[in-house]
């Protein structure tokens, strides 16, 4: 245990005037997730001054140590945004000490956001301890094992969770949810959606868990439209076909992965809906931007395509607003309920 470093932290941070908006604790036992978490942290520290306490598990077997280091990160124009980062590298055997290291280093009176890099429904020891001083638990369904199991476990987990929470995959989908709400904004258009024949959703594929946002979007629509899940077929190249029913009418949803190096892995690229009277709604993401081209056509008319901006949730204020300040409402619970009925074997 390296007490000296902890003393250094105290010395360096006491008697200094610095703005902090919140504390951010980041925990993960998965080495492979380090880069992803770092990206998230950069999104935050580039805009907001905060104290980050990062806990990483030392994966080498038979080790018995805790290492602590402190660094400062300056960002923003002229480097006026300063965050300090306390990194704690800890062996499995020492994990129970971690909350005791964190606790005195939290900036008092400010929110404590806990980004949990593992499946929160599986982990119990550390999470239980840290819940007592955390304001909000932030996790990502994409970091869980089976999505079906995750969605099933989530219900009792959330019932027992005493703090606010947010699922990053759900938050990232908000731009698309809002866009759909804007596009399908009349009883007629909602009926097109509710009784459509087919929906094709293309998403940027790199790895199996990239399917999550597409699944969430499908399940969200299904739950909001009152569809019943009927059948699932996994086709070639990770393509999945889901069949839902609405009052005896079949609705086919195709989740079709595409390779797109420019798009963020997992992000929705196209959404195409085929409804009655040859009515087609096409929403296509534009390359290298958070914009979507909408084109609606039917037997009778063909509307002029138009471009919409998706609110940028991937960074800055948008990320903070959706992940830290919003809470998943009943739509999230209903979406999970819908997901729990489907076995998405493609998720690792």
């Amino acid at each position: 245990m390296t007490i000296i470093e902890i003393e250094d932290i105290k010395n360096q941070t006491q008697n200094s005037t610095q703005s902090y908006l919140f504390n951010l604790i980041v925990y993960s036992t998965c080495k492979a997730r380090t880069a992803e978490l770092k990206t998230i942290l950069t999104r935050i520290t580039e805009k907001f001054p905060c104290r980050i306490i990062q806990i990483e598990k030392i994966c080498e077997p038979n080790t018995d140590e805790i290492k602590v280091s402190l660094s400062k990160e300056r960002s923003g124009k002229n480097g006026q945004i300063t965050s300090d980062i306390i990194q704690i590298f800890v062996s499995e055997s020492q994990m129970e000490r971690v909350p005791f290291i964190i606790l005195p280093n939290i900036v008092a009176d400010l929110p404590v956001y806990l980004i949990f890099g593992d499946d929160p429904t599986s982990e119990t020891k550390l999470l239980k301890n840290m819940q007592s001083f955390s304001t909000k638990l932030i996790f990502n369904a994409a970091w869980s094992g089976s999505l079906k199991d995750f969605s099933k476990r989530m219900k009792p987990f959330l019932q027992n969770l005493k703090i606010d929470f947010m699922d990053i995959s759900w938050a990232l989908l908000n731009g698309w949810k809002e866009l759909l709400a804007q596009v399908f904004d009349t009883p007629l258009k909602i009926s097109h959606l509710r009784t459509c024949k087919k929906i094709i959703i293309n998403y940027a594929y790199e790895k199996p868990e990239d399917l999550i946002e597409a699944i969430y979007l499908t399940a969200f629509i299904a739950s909001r439209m009152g569809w019943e899940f009927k059948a699932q077929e996994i086709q070639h190249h990770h393509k999945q076909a889901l069949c839902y029913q609405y009052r005896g009418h079949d609705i086919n949803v195709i989740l079709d992965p595409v390779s797109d190096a420019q798009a963020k892995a997992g992000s929705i690229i196209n959404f195409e809906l085929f409804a009655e009277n040859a009515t087609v709604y096409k929403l296509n993401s534009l390359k290298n931007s958070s914009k979507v081209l909408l084109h609606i056509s039917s037997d009778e008319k063909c509307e002029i395509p138009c471009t919409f901006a998706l609110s940028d949730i991937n960074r800055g204020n948008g990320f903070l607003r959706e992940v830290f300040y919003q809470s998943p409402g009943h739509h999230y619970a209903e979406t999970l309920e819908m997901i729990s009925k489907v076995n998405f074997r493609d998720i690792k």
Partner: protein
Amino acid sequence: MQTPFENPLQESGRTTKMADPCIMVIFGATGDLTSRKLVPALYNLVIDGELPAHFACVGFARREKTHDQFRDELFEAINNYSRNKPVDNEIWDTFKNQIFYHQSEFDDDKGYERLNTVLTDLDSKFGTNGNRLYYLSTQPSYFPDIIKRLNDHSLIYPIDQIKNKWSRVIIEKPFGHDLESAENLQQEIVKYLDESQICRIDHYLGKETVQNLLVFRFSNLIFESIWNNRFIDHVQITVGEEIGIGTRGRFFEEAGIVRDIVQNHMMQLLSLVAMESPTNMSANAIRNEKVKVVESIRTLPLNALDTHAIRGQYGKGFVDGLDVKGYREEDNVAKDSNVETYAAFKLFIDNWRWDGVPFYLRAGKRLPKRATEITITFKQAPGTLFCTKEKKLRQNLLVIRIQPDEGISFRMNCKVPGMTSTLQPVKMDFKYGSYFGAAPPEAYERLICDCMTGDSTLFARIDEVLASWRLFSPVLKKWETEKATDFPNYAAGTWGPKAADELLIQDGFHWRLI
């Protein structure tokens, strides 16, 4: 204001609201406000994904112009004035196709007839459901006529008859020139519009820091419990600008600083500082409390006006080290102008909370700096523990900075380290910029969006406007009839006339040096 359709894809309880599909018609679309504020605001709303997908904007003005000419001008305007620049071409390519120009005189019935046809066509093209937002960015004298003609051509929907679509009118300040004209204007427009369809814009209310006043006061117990005459000594509200009147000489000669700033913006600030807690956060509950404040302000004594109201006009001087001319030398200003470019007031709010607490207001052009601030000065701590007859304790100050450098600071006394018991005032400072980084949305973005969602909280209600005119109209009348003999009475680049300092000195105070 009703929402016609509950969309199952929208989740209630989110902190952001989604605007209804609509067409916005801007009257006076070739004016400065459209290019500097309104269209950049619309563009920023598009960028932030806050504008409804089903939206169109029609510029209504007298000059001959094609749609494309109008769009090209707006493109330039966005490039110059938007907080998001340069213009994103992909967004613009769609957005420009939602913008149209409609040429007509404001008093030409045929123009309104054609407008009706245009809007109906746009409804079917853009799915805007017949919802209409009319922005009157014209000279105020046109307001009644435009509204009457909108009504005559069924462009305004009677709220009691048509429920599935809405029509609202945004009216730019000033709402009237004095009490009488404001009442006349109101009488004219209520023939055609319900109060819930009228949005009287006061862009100060769209500012993030002004909205934060309610949050600051009513979500922090510690401040609200000392927010009264037991603990507060006096309140100062300053709206200072270092710029002169620029090209607005003609307007300013008609208006003066009281009509331009004090009667509207400053009274909004004052009412937010002094109001009681609303029963809920609805528009009416908040505005009910605000109007009570304005109605409780003691009438200014016209027979001893100098002890409560000071006027000033800038002469030549220096701003930022540069020579600047006096008001009377500005373009379109009379050489013997009697118009005030500075005003200071001492007001009392006659209610239980504020009895005996003076509110000092000052607003001026060509002051040393641009600053809008509210300063709450607390009373002296009791006892003589840390002060002597010669050396009094510095009072606690709470400063709410509206612009620039938005934030809140608190001054308190602190012991200087060492063997003595010397006290030194220190400051705790919260700055929006240091914590939240990004620039908040412009006031007009918030206000346009609120009007589309039907939230009238941030718009002035008629009783607030009339109560404010009731207070200031007699003063303005007296000042107009009794010409100032000492104008210009302050040099550009100073904090106003000496009489304004004396207004506070007579009460044992001084203006806080900003």
